[in-house]
């Protein structure tokens, strides 16, 4: 099936469905689609209904402070923005950090990645696949058998255990405070799991809740505290005294390092015994639902991350690069400094650029709002019933790599790593696909399977494993380096602004849980002159550009059949697979505190 990537491939003649807001995401987002007579999505429009601009809070401030502000932008990406920010400042000022700081940042960043992926799957995305109400009908003995089959090493598998979970669930549902599980479409035939599998997933929802609180303690050790761990330009905010004693908050010592190792091992066991097997089991039971690939089958982008050798991008555990038009034989090099490569366009975004400028590189980025609606808008300025996507229709800008709309995120990283011949990733993907094919009797190729909603969800789980596995390596390298007598955690040679050039520009990149993240900074006279970020959801949630190229969310929804157009289970499933996070890509504009998704058909 040809992947629609441009407005010329779309058909907006069918019934219009409006989902606003899209729930269980960070920030605020609206989605409109047109379905044909068979309820298949033929046009998709994704609107960020919020306005953004980091320079609004950062202009004129001390560059060394920026991390603390950007850490507060969003509730789930805290550390990843802080890390990217200190990297941008270090890049501008030519600061190289010590090896210990490099390793500790990796440990913190991978902790965030693993933590975020686990919470995303179990607490934000799982309810798109599993039905907790159906779990009440399960036979706990059957769930126990299922658990032993999909994950023989997981200790929590007795019928009594699942019976307890079911009883707790029943009690909870009966209080009438459905809370967590309110606002679902629990009798929709889009839910395919047998009750026993649903019960297993509910149990793991609870286990994941217990697990996530343990792994995040790593941030407390290295970042001083959590929520909102501390970062520092030039290194990390913790000191090391390997033989020291003392409570938390004291310098990192062998006791706290051993504590970190235990937390990593727990996360590893959870990923191996629960998370990955669950995703594969769910994928097998949804084997006929291979929709949602969209741009992933064509254009993907990553900046790369986890350098084994500091400041050597060729040593990235997950390589950077760009793939265009689905040609996996060629991975293009990406240069975030090159003004010809990354540009943001505003043809369909509620901004205007001074003069008649087209795309702007982030170093030259402007954030001048211009809210106007197209002639085909239905409704009024304050109550838009149907947006006119032929005109400006989103607060998200349209970033492009050499003019192409790109998908970013774990799936993009995995496709690029696979196509680049990365052994670890190839082995992981091939084994997962082997299990899927074996369980389903299908014979899909990687290219047929991976670019899909399920593939996106699986890539996130595989990446979680990559993170926790390699955290063990980072840990050993860190302990070895410290034992060799190196306890340095920061380079403060250029801490004093008097040592800085009058003007400097820098860029920091990272692979955030949701995808490629870049912060571009201009420093002048020791202060921030301009600060622009392109966050992953700017790429994925991008509106159309002047050439009619549609964004990743939009492309991923195309050609998906809906069971019941007034119950957007399929739309939520695919959008959630991106783990959209609009808090930092845009600015909130929710009219009321409404939790319920309104779905309207016109």
């Amino acid at each position, binding site marked *: 099936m040809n992947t629609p990537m441009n407005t010329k491939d779309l058909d907006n003649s069918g019934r219009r469905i409006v989902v606003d807001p899209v729930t269980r995401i960070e920030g605020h987002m609206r989605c409109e689609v047109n379905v044909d007579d068979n309820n298949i999505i033929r046009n998709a429009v994704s609107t960020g209904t919020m306005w*953004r601009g980091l320079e*609004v809070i950062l202009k004129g401030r001390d560059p060394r402070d920026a991390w603390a502000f950007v850490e507060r932008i969003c509730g789930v990406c805290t550390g990843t923005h802080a890390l990217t920010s200190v990297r941008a400042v270090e890049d501008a000022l030519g600061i190289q950090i010590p090896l210990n700081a490099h390793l500790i940042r990796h440990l913190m960043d991978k902790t965030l990645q693993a933590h975020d992926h686990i919470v995303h799957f179990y607490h934000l995305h799982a309810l798109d696949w599993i039905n907790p109400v159906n779990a009440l009908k399960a036979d706990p003995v059957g769930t126990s058998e299922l658990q032993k089959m999909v994950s023989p090493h997981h200790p929590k598998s007795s019928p009594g255990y699942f019976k307890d979970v079911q009883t707790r669930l029943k009690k909870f549902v009966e209080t009438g405070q459905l809370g967590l599980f309110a606002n679902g479409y629990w009798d929709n035939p889009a839910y395919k799991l047998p009750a026993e599998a649903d019960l297993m997933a509910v149990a793991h929802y609870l286990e994941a809740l217990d697990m*996530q609180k343990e792994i995040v303690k790593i941030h407390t050790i290295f970042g*001083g505290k959590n929520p909102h761990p501390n970062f520092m330009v030039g290194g990390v905010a913790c000191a090391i005294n390997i033989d020291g004693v003392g409570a938390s908050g004291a310098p990192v010592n062998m006791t706290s390092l051993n504590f970190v190792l235990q937390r990593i091992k727990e996360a590893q066991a959870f990923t191996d015994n629960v998370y990955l097997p669950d995703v594969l089991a769910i994928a097998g039971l949804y084997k006929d639902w291979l929709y949602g690939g969209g741009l992933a089958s064509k254009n993907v982008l990553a900046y790369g991350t986890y350098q084994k050798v500091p400041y050597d991008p060729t040593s990235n555990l997950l390589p950077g690069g760009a793939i265009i038009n689905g040609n996996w034989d060629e991975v293009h090099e990406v240069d975030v400094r090159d003004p010809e490569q990354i540009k943001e366009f505003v043809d369909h975004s509620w901004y205007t650029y001074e003069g008649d400028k087209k795309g702007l590189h982030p170093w030259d980025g402007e954030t001048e709002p211009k809210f106007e609606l197209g002639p085909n808008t239905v409704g009024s300025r*304050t109550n838009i019933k149907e947006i006119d996507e032929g005109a400006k229709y989103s607060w998200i800008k349209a970033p492009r790599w050499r003019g192409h709309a790109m998908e970013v995120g774990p799936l993009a990283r995995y496709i690029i790593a696979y196509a680049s011949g990365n052994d670890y990733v190839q082995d992981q993907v091939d084994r997962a696909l082997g299990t899927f094919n074996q369980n389903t009797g299908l014979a899909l190729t990687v290219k047929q399977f991976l670019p899909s909603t399920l593939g996106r969800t699986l890539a996130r789980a595989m990446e979680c494993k990559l993170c926790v596995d390699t955290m063990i390596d980072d840990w050993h390298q860190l302990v070895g380096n410290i034992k060799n007598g190196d306890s340095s955690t920061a380079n403060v040679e250029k801490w004093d602004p008097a040592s800085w050039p009058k003007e400097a520009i820098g860029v920091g990149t990272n692979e955030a849980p949701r995808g490629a993240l870049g912060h571009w900074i201009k420093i002048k006279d020791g202060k921030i002159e301009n600060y622009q970020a392109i966050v992953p959801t700017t790429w994925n949630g991008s509106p159309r550009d002047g050439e009619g190229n549609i964004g990743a969310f939009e492309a991923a929804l195309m050609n998906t059949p809906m069971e019941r157009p007034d119950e957007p289970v399929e739309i939520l499933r695919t959008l959630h697979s991106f783990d959209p996070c609009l808090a930092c890509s845009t600015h909130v504009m929710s009219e009321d505190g409404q939790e319920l998704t309104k779905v309207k058909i016109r």
Partner: protein
Amino acid sequence: MAGSQSELRANSGAVNSADQTQPLRAIILGIGNLLWADEGFGIRAVESLHARYQFPDNVEVMDGGTQGIYLVQHVQRCDLLVVFDAIDYGLAPGTMKVIQGDDVPKYMGVKKMSLHQTGFQEVLAMAEFTGHYPQHLILIGVQPVELEDFGGSLRPAVQAQVAPAISVALEYLHTFGIHPQLRDQPLPPQEQLAPTELQQHRYEAGRPSEVDACRLGDERFLNDTTDERNN
């Protein structure tokens, strides 16, 4: 966990539960996003409380920031929870509202600006689902005046409620035998809940001017308040 790191030396361990030998584990939690004007009420309330008072070891003062689901473990592990937050009860802007126990809805927060809003009601519901729900719960909320001001700080009417809100919390804690001491020395920087650059006065003083950085948002929701904002 910042609060627990310091070695606090206040005079009393609170004792007021069925088991008289075990002090209550109490958490005083501020939530919200300090970058969005009155959304920062909860954060500024705990910042101010922590700067002035020193609590016994069984009491932790916490800046929960924009964290949502990630706060669940803290809700689970305490016997007594005090929450400061901006709330939307449709009251006159700047009104304080105190809600206790089962009256605290499993739905809070004003708007979906961050996960704590899609989420704090979910956090409470999740904690309940896991069977670890605080025995004593008080929500001290203030109806915001202004949210749509990225980079802004508390409006005067909300700022004026910080001290009264703290008094409500202290009074509530007194009934459980928790008596903090006024600090005789300023809070050392390493014990602050958040980095110095985010402290309210510094945050406000360093804000870029409106000329340098446009502050306007989406006109659809600015409506006729646009003019007030520009004043």
